[in-house]
Each structure stands twice: as structure tokens, then as C-alpha cells.
């Protein structure tokens, strides 16, 4: 394993310490229990948004703490859900008179730990479960679809709504709505290496790709021979559209997300391909985001997320945001 490490046990603490020092104007980090919150609590009452999850997906979620997005993020160990005391401590620190809204990716560990954390606080609270990954079949009898790169779209738009003083109930409804009109799917060319393991999570041949991969390098829909960017983008976009069923001339946001080991140059190439495919189908890409936002450590690969836009979602996507990883109109 070649990674920048001093002591594997200390990776998370050292990384959080660096994050704090790099962005002192936006966030501060509390240690033991670990959480990241805004350096300055908003002056007026607002719903407080708290997200979190295993580490290794940076900038998700800590990179999205700040004006217009999250109030706090709870980082767990690499790929492991955070512990309930982190959510409790974060809620006690950031609550601001209008309740707590937890944004949780649909993974069993995250759900259980956030539930236990919610049981420990006295404030009104709601939870948005994000499950945008269409690679997994949804069912009421199973854990269901995973929450992946679409999570940041929920965090951005609901964060904006909370910023203008919306109620807990409005924020929860809006978040569920954004989740419902967002779908994602990814493909990986390589595995990733969890630092504590020191070796790749899975074996994959030089000519193979994992279609429908999750954000922990967990296997997806199927293992296939690698294809051209045109072919695999076509497969991904079709899977997403089957789920979203957009109307002719529908306006959408397209987010091409890198998993950590793929150059931006290729991500922009994917954006070009995706846009052309959608244009042929009469779907208009009117908002875009390209980059490494929901990563899987050093995995090579990328995902597409598409959100069907309406006036309200567009307004809250466009609004001012000031976080370590996302900054505009500020």
C-alpha cells in the first residue's frame, strides 16, 4: 500500500486536524466525539442540518458544512458509520431553535447509528434517507437502494431552504422530494484500499469493470468487460432514465462524480458524452456539476447523478453556498 500515512490508527484524526487548519474561516472540528460544524453559528433561528457517514468519501460530508448547506457533519472511521454520541454532541452544539434534520445515506449502519443518536437528543428531529442509487433494486423487504452521490444534491438544496428559515416539516418534505427526483449510478475500474486493510477491497481484472458499484467499492450489478465511454455512459444513463422517467424537454441537473482515482479530464469527457446522449432524447441539461464530491478513497471510476428540476429545486441549487468543497455566489 502506498498512501500518505504516519500511523494507520491516526489517519482520521490527522486528516480532520488538517481540514480544520485549511478552512478556519468556514468550519471548526470538535474531537472525541468527532464532528465538524460551522465556525460561526447562524444568527437567526433555522433548522439545523446534520449529516455524516463513514470517512473515505471526502469531501462528503465535512466539505459541505457551511453557509447554505450543512450545519454539522459526523465522520465515522473509514467506511464505517459514525457512532451515536457524535450525532448527539453535534446536535447539542448546532441546534438553533427550529429542530434537527438528519440527512442519512441508506446504509444499515448509518441508519442504526443515526437512530440511536436521535434517541439521545431532546430536540424535534426528522430524518431524510437518501437512496438515489438505481444499481440496486428497491424493495420494502430489503435494505433497498443505497445513498450515493445524489446525497450532496439533497444537502445543497435542503440546506438552502433551511437557510431562509423554512420549518423542519418543510425541509423534510422538500428533501424527500429532491431524493425522489434524483437517481445515480456508477462504474469502477479499480478497487479501493482501506488504509487499515492495506490491500485492495476486491480483485478486478485489467480488462474488467464493476457496473453499478457502490461508494465503498462494494460490488454492484455485474462485472463486465470494459467498454468505451460512449457505451458505458449509455448504459448508465438508460438505467437512470428508466427510474426517473423524465418527460420530453424535461430540464435536469447532471452531476458527474469521480470516485477519487479518475482524472478530471475523463470526468469532463463523460459529461460531454452524457450531455449528447440526453440531448438526443430531448432532455435538457441546464445545471451541471463535475468533480470528485463523493469519493471512495482511491477507486478509479465515476458516477452520474441526475435530478429532475422544478423551479424550487433550481432556485435552491443556484443559491449562495460557502463550504470547503462548494462555493458560489458568495
Amino acid at each position, binding site marked *: 500500500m502506498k498512501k500518505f500515512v504516519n500511523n494507520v490508527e491516526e489517519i482520521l484524526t490527522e486528516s480532520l486536524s488538517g481540514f480544520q487548519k485549511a478552512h478556519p474561516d468556514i468550519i471548526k472540528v470538535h474531537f472525541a*466525539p468527532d464532528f465538524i460544524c460551522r465556525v460561526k453559528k447562524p444568527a437567526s433561528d433555522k433548522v439545523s442540518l446534520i449529516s455524516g457517514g463513514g470517512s473515505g468519501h471526502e469531501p462528503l460530508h465535512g466539505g459541505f458544512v457551511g453557509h447554505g448547506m450543512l450545519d454539522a457533519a459526523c465522520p465515522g472511521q473509514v467506511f464505517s458509520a459514525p457512532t451515536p454520541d457524535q450525532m448527539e454532541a453535534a446536535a447539542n452544539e448546532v441546534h438553533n431553535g427550529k429542530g434537527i434534520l438528519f440527512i442519512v445515506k441508506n446504509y*444499515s449502519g448509518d441508519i*442504526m447509528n443515526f437512530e*440511536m443518536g436521535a434517541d439521545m437528543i431532546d430536540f424535534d428531529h426528522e430524518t431524510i434517507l437518501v437512496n438515489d442509487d438505481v*444499481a*440496486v433494486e428497491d424493495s420494502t423487504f430489503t*435494505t433497498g437502494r443505497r445513498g450515493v452521490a445524489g446525497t450532496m444534491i439533497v444537502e445543497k438544496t435542503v440546506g438552502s431552504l433551511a437557510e431562509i428559515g423554512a420549518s423542519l416539516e418543510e425541509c423534510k418534505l422538500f428533501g424527500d422530494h429532491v431524493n425522489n427526483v434524483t437517481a445515480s449510478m456508477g462504474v469502477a475500474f479499480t478497487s479501493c484500499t*482501506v488504509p*487499515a486493510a492495506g490491500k485492495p477491497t476486491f480483485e478486478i481484472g485489467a480488462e474488467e469493470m464493476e457496473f453499478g458499484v457502490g461508494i*465503498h467499492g462494494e460490488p454492484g450489478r455485474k462485472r463486465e468487460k470494459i467498454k468505451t465511454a460512449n457505451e458505458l455512459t449509455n448504459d448508465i444513463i438508460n438505467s437512470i432514465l428508466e427510474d426517473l422517467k423524465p418527460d420530453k424537454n424535461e430540464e435536469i441537473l447532471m452531476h458527474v462524480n469521480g470516485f477519487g482515482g479518475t482524472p478530471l479530464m475523463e470526468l469532463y469527457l463523460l459529461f460531454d458524452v452524457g450531455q449528447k446522449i440526453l440531448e438526443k432524447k430531448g432532455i435538457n441539461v441546464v445545471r451541471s456539476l463535475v468533480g470528485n464530491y463523493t469519493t471512495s478513497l482511491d477507486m478509479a471510476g465515476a458516477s452520474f447523478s441526475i435530478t429532475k428540476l422544478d423551479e424550487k429545486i433550481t432556485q435552491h441549487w443556484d443559491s449562495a453556498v460557502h463550504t470547503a468543497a462548494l462555493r458560489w455566489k458568495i
Partner: protein
Amino acid sequence: MNSENIFLALKNIKKTIDINKDEIEKLDQAIGDGDHIFNIQRGLNEALKLETELSSLSPEEVFKKIGMKIMTTVGGSSGALFATLLMGMAKKYSKELNDLENLAAMFYEGVEATKKRGKADLGEKTMLDVLIPVSLSLNKLKNEKNIKIVAEKIKMVAKEGMLSTRDIMATKGRASFLGERAIGHIDPGARSSQLAISAICDEYIN
């Protein structure tokens, strides 16, 4: 039942888990994401650090404190579930019962809490495929006078439960994302639970 023998059981569990760590990691890499073994080892190490601090406390306090420690240091699904199991067990300890009766009642309560927390039941390819049969057998055997017979039976039930996860599809937890591809793989949480239970049984068999 006292703090000393609870910690002895934990030490035996740690020994067994450490010996089998590569296998557990491989199982998790096949159908999960490979973090399970590190979480289990971190939890055991943190729990064992409490030995001196908890040495004079009653069994229910020891279970509760270990459960809290696991809840706040492990994370992931296994942290939440094992913490829930132990804190659930803490609730049912009674001075009026003998050790086996206590263990049966405590384990039943803990497993019920774990089912609720994980929203899962038997046959979903999770640790519950070990924990539920063990809980039911313990309750059937709670009046058995020969502890060795109980230990041998429980060890067998745990192993059968663990092996049963091989041939089923997962409907809960991370392996559920794999659909049919998870068939043929033993669930890592079931394996670590079975190893832990076997380690305790072996104290009474040998």
C-alpha cells in the same frame, strides 16, 4: 456471573477473533466492504481496557458499560448491533436466577433488541441467523444441570446458524445490494458472532 468471568469471556472472544481475522476480512470483502474485522477488533480492545474500572461492578452494570463503550467507539452496523445486544442483556439480569437462567433471559432480551434495531429477523443472511437460534436453544436448555452439554449444544447451533447464511440471499445489510451474487458466501457478521459464542462455549467444554 461477575465482572471477572465476563472479562474472561471477552478475552477468549478476542483470542478467537484474532486467530480468524483474515478469514472474517475475506468474507466481508466478498460481500461487504471489508471494515467488519477492524470494527470488531477495535470494540474488543476498547472493551478490554475497562477491566480494572469495572472490576467491582454488578453484571448488569458491566454489560451496560461495555455496551456503551462499544456504541461510542465501534461505529458501522456491528457497533450499533453488538452495543444494542449487550445493553439489552444488561436489562434482564436478576440476582434471583442462577447463571444459566440469567444468561438465557438476558440473551433473549438482547437478541430481541438487536432484531428491532436492525429491523431484521431469521433468514436474512445476518448475524441474527446465529443469534436467534442460540437464544432459543439457551432458553430450552436453561434447566439443564450439566453445563458441558449446554455448551456443546450451543456451539453446534451457532455453527449451523453461521453455515445457513451461505446459501441464502441477503435482504438486510450491505450484502443485500448484491442480490443473487451474495449466495455462496457466509455472512461475516454471522461468522464473527459464531466465533464469539464458540469461544465462550469452549471454556465449558474443555
